[in-house]
C-alpha cells in the first residue's frame, strides 16, 4: 500500500518514494508494454520511459483520475508511440529497399511467448498474441487492458477517455476480429491437417 502523499514525495525526488512507486506499479506497466510490443527489450525500454515521465511529471498530476489510471494512460500512449514509430521505420526501410538504398526491410515475424501464460496454454497463446497484433490500435488497447491486465470496463473507459458503452463495443469488435483472424488461421493450417 502506497502512502497518500506518494506523488508529492516522488515530485520532491525522494529516492525511497521513487523505489516504492516503482515496485508498486512495475508489473502493471511492464506487463502492459510487453503485451503491446511483444518484445522483452522494447518493453523494458518503454517501461523505463514511462517511469521517467511519471517521476518527472508527478508535480503536474492534477488528481482528476486515480494514479493507476494516469500511469496506465502514460504506458498505453508510450506503447502506441513506439508501435507507430516502428511502423514508420518499416515503411521507410521498405521504400529505401525499393530505391536500392541500404535500408533493409524489417521483418517482424518472431513468435511471442508471454511469460505469464500457463504452461498448458503456451502454444495456443502464441496464436492469440499474433492475432492481437493485427487488431486496430484502440481494439488492441481495450483487449489487452481487459483480458491481460484484468481491468474493469470502467477503468478502461477512464484510461481511454471514452464511455463504458464505447469500451464494451470496442471489446466486442476486438473479440469478433480475433475470432475471424483465428478462423482464417485454422482454415489455412489446422483445417488442412484433417
Amino acid at each position, binding site marked *: 500500500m502506497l502512502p497518500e502523499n506518494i506523488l508529492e514525495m516522488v515530485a520532491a525526488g525522494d529516492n525511497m518514494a521513487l523505489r516504492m512507486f516503482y515496485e508498486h506499479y512495475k*508489473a502493471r506497466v511492464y506487463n502492459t508494454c510487453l503485451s503491446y510490443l511483444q518484445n522483452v527489450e522494447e*518493453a523494458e525500454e518503454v517501461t*523505463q520511459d514511462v517511469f*521517467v515521465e511519471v517521476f518527472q511529471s508527478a508535480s503536474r498530476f492534477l488528481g482528476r483520475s486515480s494514479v493507476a489510471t494516469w500511469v496506465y494512460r502514460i504506458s498505453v500512449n508510450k506503447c502506441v508511440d513506439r508501435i507507430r514509430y516502428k511502423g514508420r521505420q518499416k515503411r521507410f526501410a521498405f521504400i529505401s529497399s525499393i530505391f536500392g538504398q541500404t535500408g533493409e526491410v524489417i521483418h517482424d515475424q518472431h513468435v511471442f511467448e508471454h511469460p*505469464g*501464460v500457463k504452461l498448458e496454454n503456451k502454444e*495456443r497463446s502464441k496464436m492469440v498474441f499474433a492475432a492481437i497484433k493485427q487488431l486496430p490500435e484502440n481494439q488492441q488497447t481495450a483487449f489487452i487492458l481487459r483480458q491481460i491486465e484484468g481491468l474493469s470496463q470502467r477503468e478502461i473507459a477512464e484510461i481511454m477517455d471514452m464511455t463504458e458503452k464505447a469500451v464494451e463495443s470496442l471489446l466486442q469488435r476486438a473479440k469478433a476480429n480475433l475470432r475471424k483472424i483465428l478462423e482464417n488461421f*485454422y482454415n489455412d493450417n489446422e*483445417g488442412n491437417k484433417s
Partner: protein
Amino acid sequence: MADKAKNTWVEGVMGSLQGIDRALPGDALFSKIEQKLEAGLPVTKLVPIRMVTYAAACIAILLVLNLTLLKGYKNNATHHGDNLNAVIEYYGLTNDEGGFEL
C-alpha cells in the same frame, strides 16, 4: 462437423489467456531508470511548462493593461489641459505675461 471442430479450436485458443499472470521486468530496470533520471533534468528542479506559460501570460496581460492605462491617462491629461485653456481664454483670465489672473 468441420465447423464444430473449428469453433472448438478457436474457443480453445481464445481461452488460452485465462489465468495469465503479470510478467515482471528484470531486476536491473530500476537502476536504469535512475540513470536516465540523473542524465536528464533533476526531478526536483522541474518547473511545469503550464506554470511557466501562466506566468508569461500574466506578465503580458499586466504589461498591456499598464500601457493602456498610461496611454489613457496621457490623453486625459492633454484633454483636461485643453479644456482649462479654453475656459481661461473665454473669460479673458490671462494677463500680459500669459499667466492667468484670479
